[in-house]
């Protein structure tokens, strides 16, 4: 059996650094398995978030060898084990302890987005929708809220514009609402102002790290940007708005 070396970030907001650990590697093991082994053997108090261990819940996000990943879906066999594997918390969010960060801003940001407002059902009380219309939105609803896209987005990671910008996760959320076949709400005003969609400069970093392969930039952000442009910058519409005033 082979041993693998790990450098794991230990500490809290005040103080911390990488600590060295070593653990036995077995076939098919993922980074989260290694973290659990280390936790059980030599670091009982090491803080980790995890739930499903199957890539569905989005709890175990961290930065492995510098890349934002779900630790439960990152196999050790895809990493070079001749050097230590580094595991550190997501950098964008305030640290609580070890690999656990304070994600509460995300939950607050979601609350501010106008909620789903469906049209009335058909006369028989049912809704009818075509699979094609549903497919487009189902892509967005695959999101597991791992917040890796938020972690990697420059606007949040480097510029910390949490007050002006909701981040890729919530553009996907708004896109799912806006393109929902039953929804009747209009969220474009907020997208432009409070939610800051104009701040995204389409570098596609979010799309690259999405473990669900959601085409965040192409399928959510760009179409939303287009809708904002259509509503606020289309000359005919502008004229119409001026006249209406």
């Amino acid at each position, binding site marked *: 059996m082979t041993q693998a070396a790990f450098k794991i970030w230990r500490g*809290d907001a005040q103080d911390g650094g990488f600590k060295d650990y070593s653990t036995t590697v*077995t*076939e*098919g*093991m*993922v980074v989260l*398995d290694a973290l659990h082994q280390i*936790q*059980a053997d030599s670091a*009982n*108090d*090491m*803080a*980790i*978030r*995890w*739930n*499903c*261990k*199957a*890539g*569905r*819940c*989005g*709890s175990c996000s961290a930065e492995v060898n510098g890349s934002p990943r779900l630790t439960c*879906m990152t*196999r050790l066999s895809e990493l070079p084990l001749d050097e230590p594997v580094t595991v550190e918390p997501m950098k964008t969010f305030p640290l*609580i*302890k*070890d690999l*656990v960060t304070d*994600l*509460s801003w995300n*939950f607050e940001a*979601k*609350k501010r987005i106008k*909620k*789903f407002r*469906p049209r009335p*059902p058909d006369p028989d*009380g*049912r*809704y*009818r*929708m*075509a*699979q094609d219309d*549903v497919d487009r*939105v*189902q892509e967005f*609803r*695959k999101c*597991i*809220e791992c917040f890796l896209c938020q972690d990697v987005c420059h606007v949040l990671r480097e510029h910390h514009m949490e007050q002006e910008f909701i981040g890729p996760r919530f553009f996907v959320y708004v896109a799912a*609402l806006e393109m*929902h*076949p*039953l*929804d009747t709400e209009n969220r474009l005003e907020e997208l432009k102002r409070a939610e800051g969609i104009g701040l995204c400069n389409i570098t596609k970093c979010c799309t690259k790290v999405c473990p669900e392969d959601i085409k965040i930039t192409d399928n959510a952000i760009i179409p939303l940007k287009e809708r904002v442009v259509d509503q606020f910058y289309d000359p005919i519409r502008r004229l119409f708005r001026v006249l209406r005033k």
Partner: protein
Amino acid sequence: MAEYETHEYDVLVIGAGGAGLRAAIEAAASGVSVGMVCKSLLGKAHTVMAEGGIAAALANVDDRDNWRVHFADTLRGGQYLNNWRMAELHAKEAPACVRELEAWGALFDRTEDGRILQRNFGGHRYPRLAHVGDRTGLEMIRTLQDHGIHQGIQVHMERAIIALLKDGERIAGALGYDRERGRFRLFQAAAVVMATGGIGRAYKINSNSWEYTGDGDSLAYHAGAALMDMEFVQFHPTGMVWPPGVRGILVTEGVRGEGGILTNKEGRRFMFDEIPDNYRSQTAETEEEGWRYTQGDKSARRPPELLTRDHVARCIVREVREGRGSPHGGVFLDIAWIKERVPKAAEHIKRKLPSMYHQFKQLADIDITQHPMEVGPTTHYMMGGIKVDGDTQMSTVPGLFAAGECAAGLHGANRLGGNSLSDLLVFGKRAGRYAAEFAKEKGHGQINTDEAEQAARNALEPFQRGTAAGEGPYQVQQDLQEMMQDLVGIVRREDEMLRALEGISSLRERAQRVGVPGNREYNPGWHTALDLESLLTVSEAITRAALERKESRGAQFRDDYPNKDPVSGKINIIIQKGPEGEMQVRREPIPEMPAELQGIIEEMG
């Protein structure tokens, strides 16, 4: 003395999976103040793992379906030990609950004419499961979460409850701690809804997350509530078996619903070898007929792969024990074979089972559109739990309600796939409504702060012992899991279970001595030490109930009593804490079913 912050709510919901969220939404809608606590972040509860769908007799795909058929299927699957009132309400109310979810934004897969599509599942006579590919649970929890955050519910994330507090006989609140800082929190509540999910972490091979330590069952038990049907632990037939790190992760029954077949190492479809008598008339005679069923032919009967989970799991165990298993101790589940029948099969499989495709590709290097999967049984679900009133979901403790997996009754001796998500909706909603009613009528009780302080002091003991104690909590947890797996697993015997009881009492002594390093801030070692009490309590309850039921029925298979016993078929086994703190076991006759429901059972054969 331990310090704590105090919160006051009319209704406190413990757990934020499907049942907890649905209960909180309903309680808030009736105008009372609602607090909800959950051990993880919001939206991460185990409901996200549900794959197959929500069972509801919408009759969108087969118009012969209705609540009466669903009711009869549920009782047949549960071997008639079910709380028939719950089975009736569940079958009647599930369709409206699914439509309600749709009105809150859930986007189910559609039929040709735009209605909610339904799929086949084990034990359901007609295609009945409303679904979204194989990620229905995620759709459900996200819909409830996104709706729930606008209903004025106060959500306390990453908090665990360690004791329920009573005022005389009735509930008065709960004590918990926050994971982040380790501070104690006192919740005063007129009514409490338990929605804590299952007990899977009592076993080594399981499909459950760390949260599934049986907290709700254990807290309710220690507060004096009766538990019921604890012997019925569902071992899902198809968990991953290889590589070792993923052992136990669920492979949805939807694979079989879409035409997947089970074979042994000789390539034989062994499920045809043994068909239980009560399902014979509903089961396909040939492979050809089974295939036609999965493709929607209404004249065909279902393939034996879609028999109930208890039966399929036992057949897999038999194949493995008799030396016909796969290389890593399972059997083969093959969906790739449908390329013989379906054009563009690879695309079809990826579309119908995207999460499964992804899971095997990423975790096991297997392309399920080309190769069979290796699967074996995994501890999945607890049919038993807190005994509740069928209409109101109130436990035997006034003001304490329970819904979802931690409540007992709906599923009897074996749960049908898809009946869990519908359970969460129907009974989450009922628990929320009646908890709010109770709160309005009875108001708040008085909390005994001495009791709360004692619980807080006990919780801090692992720190006082520190690492000098010599043993941490993880080893005790692992030893318990291994013992339960070996001695109280799928196949049970009296001598082994008596050994398990001895094992549990020595593990309990070890648990009382464990120490943890570090401080109270986000310390999983400490949290694990506190979870041990719940795990030990439910393990003991499972073992004692399984010893008492001297027959094989549903999920309980006794090697020493391999047949059904007609007398045991008329009772539920009840577990309750005795006056000296000892665990008491008793038999309770199942109330007689009204003639109308009895008539349905007879008519459906």
